């Protein structure tokens, strides 16, 4: 039988008719009928038809008393919860029914009733819920399933009555500490405590002693997968190892969980291990290998999870000078079927992984992408090649420039424009290395349409006018219809023409300058541009009239001053990184921004102090000896004294000094995001828009 017709809007009176149409026929038919009517109510609530459905409350109450069918009860509770969250006051009448269910002997019914009580934000309900939970928790002997639900429900109650929940926290601590028969209750208490502490800024950070942590880790074999995942998540930051051997021991326990098929378990295990690694002074290479392997294995997941893992890989690559994971670049080669957000993220990973040895392979791939895949991706690939040239040394840059030139030969508009835009950056980094190559670009003048590439080309022409013999002609092309250009291009034309004039004053250029000054001050309506034009105008006339005040060198210095060398800094501030690393797998790790920027109310996580905390992440030594893991205690005694005390004061200082640029995320990440925006207004983008989007847009309108 289909419920299809259930999903349409009904009037309260219609359903009521269905419900009351009872006494006439046989009992069995009636139950079916009534259930169908009740289902209609729930369906209508889902559709958002609250106003009508609220009128049916008395009818629901009537059935609640009469029926003892579980399905009917479930519907009644569902109804009360939904109505309760909108109009808490109106549901008071259902109180006796709920209380009756709460006292029943059926566990399912008890759980249902408790959840209803907890969900309705009204003092009377909350009161009863507390009484019941306190009774349960003190008795202990009750079924673990009910107890577990009761403990978790404190999370919701915390929103209604924080004080009372906190008064129960001692009991929760006890539950966590004792070894109970049912480990999942223990985990429930742990998770609840952890979340409560995390939610409330005023509370002290939640912490557990090392002994309790060991006890909890011991029960892992008895837990189901989700509980294991919760446990590993809760232990991060809450347990602070005080000796190296403790940290090693816990790493060893967690290592086996990396092999769990459930992504959330293995990722939480990874997070826990990475956290603990801050408390050891050296680590065996076999462990880092296993970490890398598990990360790679996680890439074989549904694309959403793959996306998350990739974002976290970016984070791991950024965290340390020598990344703790070693992953072969080929895993980040883009596949044809990847969703676009994966392609995008893979590109970022490739960029971060690039060094002298991997560059040839990466370049080869990027070149493929620039000609192969869709327009957006190919632009990004070109941009990545350019950024690599800036990031790596000059030999690598040679390769990159060769690739770019090769790509330019294809003569595809958007590729050429992108190449010219990035080539500007390359010239900024290596001003004299590519003089020959830049002449080649002048033949692509016709392709240049977008503001960004125009700006780049204008800059190149004005900066290298001494080697471009036809610079005046080139420049004429740009000023042909100057009034129609977007403001940023107008600005750069103005700057460039003045620069050219100062460098080599010829009558032709002087003419151009004068017309520009006139147009910009008289015809164009942009006040900033007008101001700039006046400024240059006055500057030039002052240099001419009173050379004693402003001589030629000074003028050159003002107009054509030396630009700072650009660096692509892909490192994040250590404090932010530390926090991000402790949030692996969370929403912050997707955005790669510090928590305060996304969620203002949240606490900032940081590594708790301990005598064995590594002050500097890069001081970690990766050893190749084999007995490290098997024999941690012996080794430990040799190393504690030397490493942990020495570094503390020096690095503390450096941490604070870099706080200023915390809001600057990884350069690359920024770069791509900025790019997305700007390319979206460009005309080329419109061509790439998928037909599906249009269809969806149309159908959405129709629905309205």
């Amino acid at each position, binding site marked *: 039988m289909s419920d299809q017709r259930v999903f349409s809007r009904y009037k309260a009176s219609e359903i009521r008719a269905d419900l009351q149409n009872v006494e006439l026929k046989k009992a069995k038919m009636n139950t079916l009928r009534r259930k169908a009517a009740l289902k209609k109510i729930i369906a209508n609530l889902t559709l958002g038809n609250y106003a009508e459905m609220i009128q049916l409350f008395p009818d629901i109450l009537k059935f609640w008393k009469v029926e003892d069918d579980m399905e009917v009860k479930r519907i009644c509770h569902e109804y009360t919860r939904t109505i309760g969250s909108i109009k808490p006051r109106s549901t008071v009448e259902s109180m006796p029914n709920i209380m009756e269910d709460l006292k029943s002997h059926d566990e399912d019914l008890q759980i249902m009733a408790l959840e209803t009580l907890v969900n309705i934000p009204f003092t009377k309900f909350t009161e009863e819920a507390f009484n019941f939970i306190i009774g349960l928790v003190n008795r202990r002997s009750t079924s673990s399933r009910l107890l577990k639900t009761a403990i*978790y429900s404190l*999370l919701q109650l915390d929103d209604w009555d924080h004080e009372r929940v906190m008064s129960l926290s001692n009991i929760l601590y006890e539950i966590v500490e004792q070894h109970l028969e049912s480990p999942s209750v223990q985990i429930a208490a742990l998770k609840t405590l952890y979340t409560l502490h995390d939610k409330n800024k005023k509370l002290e950070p939640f912490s557990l002693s090392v002994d309790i942590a060991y006890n909890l880790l011991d029960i892992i074999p008895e837990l*189901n997968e*989700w509980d294991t995942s919760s446990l590993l998540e809760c232990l991060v930051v809450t347990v602070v190892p005080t000796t190296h051997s403790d940290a090693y021991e816990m790493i060893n326990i967690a290592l086996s969980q990396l092999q769990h*098929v*459930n992504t959330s378990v293995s990722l939480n295990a990874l997070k826990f291990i990475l956290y603990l690694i801050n408390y050891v002074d050296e680590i065996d290479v076999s462990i880092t290998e296993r970490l890398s392997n598990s990360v790679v*294995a996680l890439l074989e997941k549904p694309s959403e999870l793959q996306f998350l893992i990739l974002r976290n890989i970016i984070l791991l690559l950024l965290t340390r000078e020598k990344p703790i994971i070693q992953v072969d670049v*080929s895993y980040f080669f883009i596949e044809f079927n990847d969703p676009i957000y994966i392609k995008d993220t893979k590109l970022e990973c490739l960029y971060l992984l690039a060094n002298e040895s991997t560059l040839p392979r990466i370049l080869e791939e990027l070149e493929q992408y620039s000609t192969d895949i869709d327009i*957006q991706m190919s632009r990004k690939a070109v941009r990545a090649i350019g950024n690599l040239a800036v990031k790596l040394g000059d030999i690598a840059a040679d390769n990159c420039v060769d690739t770019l030139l090769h790509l330019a030969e294809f003569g595809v508009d958007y590729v050429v424009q992108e190449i010219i835009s990035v080539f500007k950056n390359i010239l900024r980094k290596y001003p004299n290395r590519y003089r020959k190559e830049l002449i080649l670009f002048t033949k692509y003048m016709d392709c240049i349409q977008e503001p960004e590439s125009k700006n780049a080309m204008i800059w190149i022409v004005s900066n290298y006018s001494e080697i471009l013999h036809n610079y005046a002609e080139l420049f004429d092309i740009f000023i042909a219809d100057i009034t129609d250009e977007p403001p940023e291009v107008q600005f750069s034309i103005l700057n460039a023409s003045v620069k050219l004039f100062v460098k080599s004053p010829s009558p032709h250029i002087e003419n151009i300058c004068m017309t520009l000054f006139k147009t910009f001050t008289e015809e164009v309506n942009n006040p900033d541009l007008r101001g700039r034009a006046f400024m240059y105008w006055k500057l030039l006339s002052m240099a001419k009239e009173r050379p004693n005040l402003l001589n030629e060198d000074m003028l050159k210095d003002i107009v054509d001053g030396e630009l700072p060398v650009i660096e692509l800094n892909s490192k994040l501030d250590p404090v932010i990184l530390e926090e991000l690393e402790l949030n692996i797998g969370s929403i912050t790790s997707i*955005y790669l921004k510090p928590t305060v920027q996304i969620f203002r109310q949240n606490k900032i996580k940081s590594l708790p102090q301990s005598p064995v905390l590594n002050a500097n992440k890069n001081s970690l030594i990766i050893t190749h000896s084999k007995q490290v893991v098997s024999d941690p205690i012996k080794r430990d005694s040799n190393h504690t004294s030397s490493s942990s005390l020495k570094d503390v004061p020096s690095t503390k200082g450096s941490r604070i000094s870099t706080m200023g640029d915390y809001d600057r995320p990884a350069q690359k990440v920024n770069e791509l995001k900025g790019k997305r925006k700007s390319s979206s207004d460009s005309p080329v983008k419109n061509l790439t828009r998928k037909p599906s989007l249009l269809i969806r847009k149309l159908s959405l309108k129709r629905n309205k």
Partner: protein
Amino acid sequence: MASALYFCDDKGKPLLSRRYKDDVPLSAIDKFSTLLLDCEEQSSILPPCISHSGIDYLFIQHNDLYIVALATSLNTNVATIFTFLHRLMAVLGEYLKTVEEESIRDNFIIIYELLDEMMDYGIPQVTETKMLKQYITQKSYKLVKSHKKKRNAARPPTALTNSVSWRPEGIKYKKNEAFLDIVESINMLISQSGQVVRSEIIGAVKIKSRLSGMPDLKLGINDRGIFTKYLEGNDIGTSPAVEEVDDKAKKTKNNESSITNDGKKARSNIELEDLKFHQCVRLSKFENEKIITFIPPDGDFDLMNYRLTTSIKPLIWCDVKMQTHSNSRIEISCKAKAQIKKKSIATNVEILIPVPDDADTPTFKYSHGSLKYVPEKSAILWKIRSFPGGKEYSMRAEMLLPSISNTEETKLKRPVQVKFQIPYFTTSGIQVRYLKINEPTLQYKSYPWVRYITQSGDDYTIRVSNN
């Protein structure tokens, strides 16, 4: 922790919802569809995670559905949520066969119940279908009464929290059998020159268990590489895993034989780079003693996944050549070769060769299989039912192109995609030595069955050069 879960149709309109915590406004989901549109408009990149006014929308797509989890706090572990959503789809798949808009509407009561059981206050609880089925049996309208009785009588009260949370007690089969499938999927990216850019083997050991009681299973695999990988430096001879294999293989051999075996191992050592186990496998036991022991859940499940990145040569290699003649016709020739053992046969081979969108009137010449032009995919599909190892087949196709072509040359090049299956063959050479089944109380006779198959993965592609 998720605050609420929503099932939305392909436009982002909610079909069904379950609110776990009362901290997101009811109207939050209404913004989802506009957010989707906005995101797609801003850039064609639509990430599975959207943030809007303090609420995060985490979603996956399944058929024509969006399954959206709303979260408000930083605490939210995205890994947990995405994993849960995928599990949820798997569970619903077992209840409803196909999970799509219509089946969601048809079964919403059951879905509400499932959602209640699977998550408490946004924290995942149980996602094993067999366990859930104890609570929520598939309800057809006629069965409601009888099923209710059964439920009250038979259910053990704390099944969800006992130590073996994935297997209910009291399962009985007349014939006790365990079916073991080893499936290896090959992912490969081959450049136009025939060079392998990337290759990997994704393996899975799948078990279908039809066993009574609480059986304890022990699995032995031929490859000692798995077991010695993490043991380097330790004395291999004393490892119980190795002894176990020896016991089984040659009963009379003593300790000396394990030394000779070490030499053998060096030859056949393959590196399984990462093993992932189902939650039933005792990970600590594997960690310490390298034995795979487990109490299986009832029915189908993946016991183990592994991955190998040893470079392998293409199993099915296609040499595709395309030639465009003066904007009027395109000539495609393809030579396919099965580079596998003579004894093996590749079955259901499908080679999908992309052609320009505007090509028409195909003419084909081929020796084996069947050729078809698939205009909706803009490709030619070459199907070969069985392809014995070492053979080489070829085909030629010619298609006409419109004489007036778009002035703006599109540079979109799609790769050739290949699909195939090779039964009785594993690329990695993995083999099951034994599967011991031991049920302490019932002591029944049981039958393990083993099958091997190699197939193409999601991504077995060959890049094409286009001249």
